[in-house]
């Protein structure tokens, strides 16, 4: 793992250097941050949510055991944990907690609260949704030798465990509350984070006030914050341009970025990064002719990803060509190596000729099918239009059908589609998370292709228990090649993240994940 961390640290240092001047100034205390939230959380329970809307809403109120050190991403650092040790066999993690941590009601936060939180995450009581239950299945026991020490015992080596402990979804709740009512965090907020909950007016805004007893002395710098919900990006941009909000921390489109830069000049700061999201093309292997690998491979080879990324980047969030792991992450495939894989080649004339040949061999030279897609304009619509055009160039006729989220998901789950555009939303670059979507459909319902491959499953499982990063990368490359050759489910393009903030907003840190860095503890306003 060390070489990966060094690499990541180097990348982080460069990022820090770019944003250096903003971070180097002495933070000023005071002021209320007004920012935009492009979605509203359905409830307050981090454990049962998979939407950034929950994190951008709730993170300022909560602490986690560890947290991502964004300038050194994907490095981690302590949040509630002051220090930690990992046993020689990598199966025991011992954390020492800060001693001066209290919940917002004044009660001390102890190891019992952390244990109750992780017990709820890995073994949720009846009726409680924990979408991270599988993540913590390697934990066999949690011990609390004293009020400020917690020990996690694992049944096997898990190289991603530290990153999982830093997951922003693992908000630490008071044991007393979740024992009395396991559903309590859905409708109540009581954390130990930098801000205390003030109010949530549904459909309108959420606000918080500084937690004066926050355990990190001097933080937070802001007196408070107010996050306003926007359902339309144009309204949000107007508010940003007019100074009503100083930021929106998920993303804006490249066209919006250009508009803001033109209108605001040096009053707006633009930060960009490749993103931990991608769109996938999924072939329904339960339906003919997509059960034939030649058909899938032909359709995959017809997609000009390198050319498409140029055009799509101007009109959508799609930009980066990559394999199964985000390009730019320590585990990503080298671009030169990627170009050798069918579907990622640069010589499109040759690839399309090969694709036509494959379709003819499969007996479907005049293939027609329906592309199942979402109605969400960005980036699903441009991606769908792009694919239709790419397949038209090898003589394939495609009907592009877009559905609202609910019927779209229902169609995917029930296998009522030929070819679909699916998506992958990861909160960090951990290969096990990314590869989970490629595990056989019978074990992983999120793999909508219907493909069963014990060989792929075994390799994905194997890489998840290899402690040595070099060895792990070898296995990842092996499974990546198998998956891309099989072409049952292939990445189209990875997304690009653009965050615009007013230049007077300081201390916020950019990363490839919109789920991270939302606690606002180090954010301040330079006025």
């Amino acid at each position, binding site marked *: 793992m060390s070489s990966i961390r060094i690499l990541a640290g180097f990348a982080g240092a460069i990022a820090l250097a770019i944003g250096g001047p903003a971070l180097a100034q002495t933070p000023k205390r005071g002021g209320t941050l*007004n920012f935009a939230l492009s979605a509203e959380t*359905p*409830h307050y329970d981090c454990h049962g*949510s*998979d*939407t*950034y*809307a929950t994190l951008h809403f709730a993170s300022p109120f909560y602490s986690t055991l560890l947290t991502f050190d964004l300038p050194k991403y994907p490095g981690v650092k302590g949040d509630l944990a002051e220090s930690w040790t990992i046993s020689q066999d990598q199966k025991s993690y011992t954390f020492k907690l800060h001693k001066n941590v209290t919940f917002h009601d004044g009660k001390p936060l102890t190891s019992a609260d952390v244990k109750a939180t992780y017990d709820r995450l890995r073994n949720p009581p*009846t*009726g409680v*949704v*924990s*979408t991270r*239950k*599988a993540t913590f299945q390697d934990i066999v026991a949690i011990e609390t030798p004293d009020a400020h020490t917690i020990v996690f015992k694992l049944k096997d080596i898990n190289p991603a465990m530290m990153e999982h402990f830093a997951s922003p979804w693992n908000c630490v709740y008071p044991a007393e509350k979740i024992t009395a009512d396991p559903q309590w965090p*859905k*409708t109540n907020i009581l954390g130990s984070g930098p801000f205390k909950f003030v109010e949530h*007016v*549904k*459909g*309108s*805004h959420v606000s918080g006030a500084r937690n004066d007893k926050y355990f990190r002395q001097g933080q937070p710098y802001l007196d408070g914050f107010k996050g*306003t*919900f*926007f*359902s*339309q990006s*144009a*309204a*949000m941009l*107007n*508010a940003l*341009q*007019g100074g*009503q*909000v100083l930021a929106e921390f998920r993303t804006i489109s490249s066209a919006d970025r250009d508009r803001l830069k033109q209108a605001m000049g040096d009053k707006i700061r633009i930060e960009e990064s490749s993103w931990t*999201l991608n769109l996938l093309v999924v072939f329904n292997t339960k339906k003919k002719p997509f059960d034939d690998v030649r058909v899938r491979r032909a359709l995959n080879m017809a997609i000009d990803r390198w050319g498409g990324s140029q055009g799509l980047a101007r009109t959508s969030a799609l930009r980066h060509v990559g394999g199964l792991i985000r390009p730019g992450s320590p585990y990503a495939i080298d671009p030169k190596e990627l170009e050798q894989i069918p579907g990622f080649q640069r010589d499109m004339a040759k690839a399309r000729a090969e694709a036509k040949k494959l379709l003819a061999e499969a007996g479907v030279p005049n293939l027609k099918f329906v592309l199942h897609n979402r109605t969400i304009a960005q980036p699903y619509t441009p991606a769908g239009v792009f694919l239709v055009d790419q397949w038209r160039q090898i003589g394939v006729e495609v009907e592009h059908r877009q559905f*609202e*989220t*609910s*019927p*779209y*998901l*229902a*169609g995917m*789950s*029930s296998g009522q589609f030929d070819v679909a555009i699916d*998506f*992958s*939303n*990861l909160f960090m670059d951990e290969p096990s998370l990314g590869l*989970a*979507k490629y595990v056989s459909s019978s074990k*992983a*319902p*999120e793999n909508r292709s219907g493909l069963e491959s014990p060989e792929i499953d075994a390799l994905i499982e194997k890489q998840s228990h290899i402690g040595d990063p070099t060895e792990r990368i070898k296995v990842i490359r092996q499974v990546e090649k198998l998956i891309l050759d099989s072409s049952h489910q292939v990445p189209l393009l990875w997304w690009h993240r653009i965050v615009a903030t007013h230049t007077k907003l300081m201390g916020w840190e950019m990363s490839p994940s919109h789920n991270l860095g939302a606690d606002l503890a180090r954010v301040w306003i330079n006025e």
Partner: protein
Amino acid sequence: MFVYLVNRVLLMVPTLLGVAVLIFFMLRVVPGDIVEVKLRGDGGNPTQETLDAERKRLGLDRPLVEQFGEWMTGLFTLDLGKSMWTEQPVTDEIALRLELSFEVALMATLIAILIAIPMGTLSALLKDTWIDYAIRIFTIAGLAMPSFWLGMLTIVSLLFFFNWLPPLTYTPIYEDPWNNMAQLFWPALSVGYRYSAVVARMMRSSIIEVLNEDYIRTARAKGVFERLVVMRHAMRNALLPVITVIGLEFAFLIGGLVVTEQVFNLNGIGRLFVQAVGRNDFTLIQGMVMLTAVVFVVTNLAVDMLYAVFDPRIRYR
């Protein structure tokens, strides 16, 4: 009159019941459910066990008849259930936004009436003069221009020329009238302009029609002042179809300002409706459809009552 009123109110019951039955079953025909949207809509990978448990918790695994029974029982006790998305009472979700939507609808209606009645009347009285042409251009522009587009122009103009934008969050008028007006005047104006165009066109044609009636000619022949002819005889009759249009438009505005609410970032009923539909939030959609139905039947009743006020010949029995 009283008997008529009671009859009309009683007739509302089967109308609303019909709506309640239709909306319940129509929603269940659409594929998909809220659990998928909630747990998978943003890329989550929950297990089948988690999805099933959540469906069970929300009562979606129960037989349709049982769910329908609960819905109908709730209706009779005015309990619309809980939103499946936020798990808050549907009535609370609606009540939170109704005040804003009602205020915008009311302000837009007032703006429309203040603009449309004099303009429509003037246009009819000065038919085929330059004033009539100018008013017709104004009203046709209002009909042609979507109110949300006018809203966007308004916002951009305020930002560009005054570097100012309406407040982002709603403050009730009784708490801070200035802030309230600063936020809601602009959407009301955008919507009110289109609304006034519809009403002014109706007013104009209605007055032109009435002015050709025999009783107007008789009044003029009797030497009644022209002002009295217009105000007392022509306008009162001409207002009947105009009232109908105003009533329908008002009812529509309560839940129909979807895009305008988004443009001005208003936390109103229209936006909530669209969000509920996008999420397949059955209970909230059902509640909002019932609200819309109630608004329409009550407005229709109010319009019918107003007929009697404006036209003494109309008597309800």
